[in-house]
Every structure is written in C-alpha cells, then in structure tokens.
C-alpha cells in the first residue's frame, strides 16, 4: 500500500484560501500542492514548515528510483 497524505484547504471569511499539505515530506510537498493552488487563484505567500525540511520517506525515494 502507498503513502497517504492530506491536502487541507481553509477559506477565511474574506475568501482568502490557505492550502496545507500533511504527510508529504521534503520539497515534494510544494510540487504536489502548488499546481493545485495556481488553479484556485494568484499565490500570495508560501511558508515552508517543519515537515518540508524533513527528509523524504526512503521507501518513496527508492520507489521513484526503481521506476
């Protein structure tokens, strides 16, 4: 079975949208959610949190190499 991750979208009363990923480590989180964010509207800010700086799951990395 693969890895499960979440995309959490929160829309404030002004209509501003915040998109957060959970369960994707490393820079892959941006490549996963940024194209989606661009579909919603102009990107205002990008904040990298702790999980971004954690190493990608080794299993995921090996899977990509095998492909």
């Amino acid at each position, binding site marked *: 079975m693969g890895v499960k991750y979440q995309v959490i*979208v929160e*829309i*404030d*009363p002004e*209509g501003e949208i915040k998109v957060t990923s959970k369960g994707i480590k490393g820079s892959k989180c941006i490549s996963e959610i940024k194209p989606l964010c661009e579909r919603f*509207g102009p*990107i205002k800010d990008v*904040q990298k949190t702790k999980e971004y700086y954690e190493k990608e799951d080794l299993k995921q990395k090996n899977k990509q190499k095998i492909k």
Partner: protein
Amino acid sequence: MSTCITVSPPLSGADCVPLIGVGMSLLTSGICELNYACELNQQMKNCEGKIVAVDLLIKNLQGEQIGVKVNKNGNAEFILEDVKSVSALESIKQIRQRYSKNKVLYELQQVGYKNIKQEKLSNGNIRIVVEKWE
C-alpha cells in the same frame, strides 16, 4: 504540517481575476446558497447616483442591491449604491467566501479528488480536506 500556501481571494475588488467559463456559474451558485436573489443583465444605481448596467444584480436579505460587472478584461467588480453600508459590505464578504469555496471544490474535482470533506469552523472559516494515496 508541511508547506502552507496562501492564495489571494479569487474574487476580490482590487485584484480581480477573470470570471470566465464556469466562473459565473460558481458565483451564482454561491449567491443562491446564501438565499440571495440574483438576476442577469439588469440596471442599478451606483454610489454616484448614476444608473449603470450590471451583468448580475444581487439582492441581499436586507433588500440591498449589489451589482457585479464583468469588465472588458473579464474581471468581476462589485457595485454598491451605498459604499458605507455595513450589511452590503458584509454580504460581499460572504459572496467572496462562497465563491472561493465553490472554486476550490470545482478545481479539486477537476484534478481527480473524490472524497472531499468540508465543514464550517467556529471562527467562520470553511475547511475542506482531501486525501490521496501514492
């Protein structure tokens, strides 16, 4: 939590984005969810007292008229008779939030997300969560 990306409201007065294609239907859906009445291609009085044509004429629960005009660049602008009306400005905020929500749901479905959960939070935010397996 990993990366957090903030997206400007897709429907805003200052930085308008094109309201083309499905945009208008997403907007009218949001307006109906608020139980506001709306009609296409009407006229209303703007804040200068002039009669102007609008693409969408909305009436909020207080009976106030709010116009939506799509300009030549394809961007949507809000028009009010009384720019100081607190209730009208609050209605615009609600319309913007609903449009953003409908826009998000539409785009999530377009890219293939299926199990979409949404809830209204106590702070007034709308939260949408999707999961994906890799």
